[in-house]
């Protein structure tokens, strides 16, 4: 393919960049200002007031951020560990059993969270978990576990089981095999699964709404209330904070892939 003139290409890239990054730029601009009315193109007054919650532990954003972090951490830990064992067992299956198991594990991922919350609400309410942190945590784990299980099925599908056999033959008892061979090999996937479960919980809305019943406030929920109330500056700040973990993980994942490519090359 002949090299095309760089003019249009650069122009196209610019359009793409603006399209992809402009909303984020807007968020940043809004979060560092307090007055920005139509029809001005730049904020009227710059201010860091929106970020005060970082220092003083105010009601604004801070408590919902804390709740979101706690929920996502729990969901990440539980779903990654449980997903490992689940994925391993499923990966051991063959034929129709395996297809069925994978389809089952796919259900929590495929069913829309809203439908899931309506279906689950009754049982969780009956168990006394409605409107409580624990209840929302359990609710978040349901889809997160689906994602991590499928992730580990993929990992174990290409896992060389022979290393375990080899270790046994060399004199290691089952506990040693786990400790010295299997778990070290799984350390990286476990971290990745944790990130996956974390993100599933982090951005979750319907499950928190319906199971939390207004008593459990997470950052996405707070963001939505700001949008509905027209409080753009606070909404933008909340939005930026909400975007930080996934963005950070994307960067880390991108670097990891690049490093791998260098090693292979």
């Amino acid at each position, binding site marked *: 393919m002949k090299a095309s003139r760089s003019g249009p290409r650069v122009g196209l890239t610019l359009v793409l960049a603006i399209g992809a990054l402009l909303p984020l730029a807007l968020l940043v601009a809004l979060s560092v200002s307090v007055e920005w009315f139509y029809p001005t193109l730049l904020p009227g007054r710059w201010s860091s007031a929106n970020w005060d919650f970082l220092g003083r532990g105010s009601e604004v954003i801070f408590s919902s951020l804390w709740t979101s972090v706690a929920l996502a951490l729990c969901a990440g830990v539980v779903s990654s560990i449980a997903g490992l064992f689940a994925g391993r067992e499923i990966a051991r299956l063959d034929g129709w059993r395996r297809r069925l198991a994978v389809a089952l594990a796919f259900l929590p991922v495929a069913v829309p969270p809203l439908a899931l919350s309506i279906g689950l609400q009754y049982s969780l309410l009956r168990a006394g978990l409605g409107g409580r942190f624990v209840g929302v945590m359990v609710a978040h784990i349901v889809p997160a576990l689906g994602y991590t299980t499928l992730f580990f099925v993929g990992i174990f599908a290409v896992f060389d089981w022979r290393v375990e056999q*080899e*270790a046994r*033959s060399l*004199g*290691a*008892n089952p506990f*040693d095999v786990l400790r*010295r*061979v299997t778990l070290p090999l799984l350390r990286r996937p476990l971290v990745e699964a944790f990130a996956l479960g974390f993100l599933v919980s982090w951005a979750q809305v319907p499950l928190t709404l319906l199971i939390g019943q207004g008593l459990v406030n997470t950052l996405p929920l707070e963001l939505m209330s700001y949008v509905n109330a027209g409080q753009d500056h606070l909404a933008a700040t909340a939005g930026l904070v909400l975007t930080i973990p996934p963005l950070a993980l994307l960067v880390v994942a991108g670097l990891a892939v690049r490093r791998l490519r260098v090693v292979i090359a």
Partner: protein
Amino acid sequence: MRGVEVRLDGDLVLRSLTMQVGRGERFVVVGPSGAGKTTLLRAIAGFVTPDRGEISVAGRGATALPPEKRDAVYMHQTPVLFPHLTVFENVAFPLRVRRVPAGEVRERAGAALDAMLMGEFGNRIPRTLSGGQRHRVALARAIVARPALLLLDEPFSALDPALKRDIRVALLAAHAQYDPGSVVVTHDFGDAAGIADRIGVLIGGELVQVAPPAELFARPASLAIARFLSIANEICGLADGAGNFSSPLGNLPVANGVPAGAAVAVFSPAAVRIGQEGGTMARVLEVYIHPQYTTLKLKIAGETVEAACPLGSSFTIGGETTVVLDRASVAVFPLSMAERDNKTV
């Protein structure tokens, strides 16, 4: 092992197997694919439980022991090194799980690596090693704890000749270290002959013959074995039940056990002597030149026979020569109808 029987998915894979491997002995199990060779090895290793029979290693009953407690190391066809450990840590692994103190680990693992000529590679990771290097690391790791038995599953498969030689040398070096017994499984008789003290032929789950390589090749115990060994020539004829076998190539004395009736004489190309006085007339059909010898395809009295002759002899296609059969290298077996038509094992 004694009387070991293994059933997999309902099929009897190993039938009442009994065999012994001595200290320092290299015992090679050969057989066609699907004969049960890998199952045999894995039964010794402890990954397959026999339905009947006993196995003992180094004098200790092993039938009830889990793999890690048997004194036998099973090595997969492609070397399985631990990807998350360095070469040194791989070799040190058996010592570490036996809680050997660190100083001793360093010494013994280092010695094993040196014995396998991999002493310089201690800090490398498995991913960066070549095939031959991996085999050597795997062997070093296998011998570092001095197990009584080494079990190698098809170590020569799918390798080029240089690599095969590499592994053969490494295996002999391992034996030189402390005299373990080895059970090696392969489907290639040539590879087996290169390292074996004794060869066991496994066909259909049974050990049909156990003998040193030379004896096996010269006197296979049955037609099936002869066919497996790909002994090239088969001439059909008639046995009279009294010790004679008549064929287009002449009459041959046979072992007493051959009953009257259709029989087949089996012999390798090396058993055919070319250009001898008083031999039978033969016409040269084709000439094949190999690196170390030449093979001729000859037509003798209506039968096609392969004969080997040393490099340097020259023959023309269509020319004539005489041949004599070396009777000591010919085996005669009774032939059933089915066997005559089915040329493969």
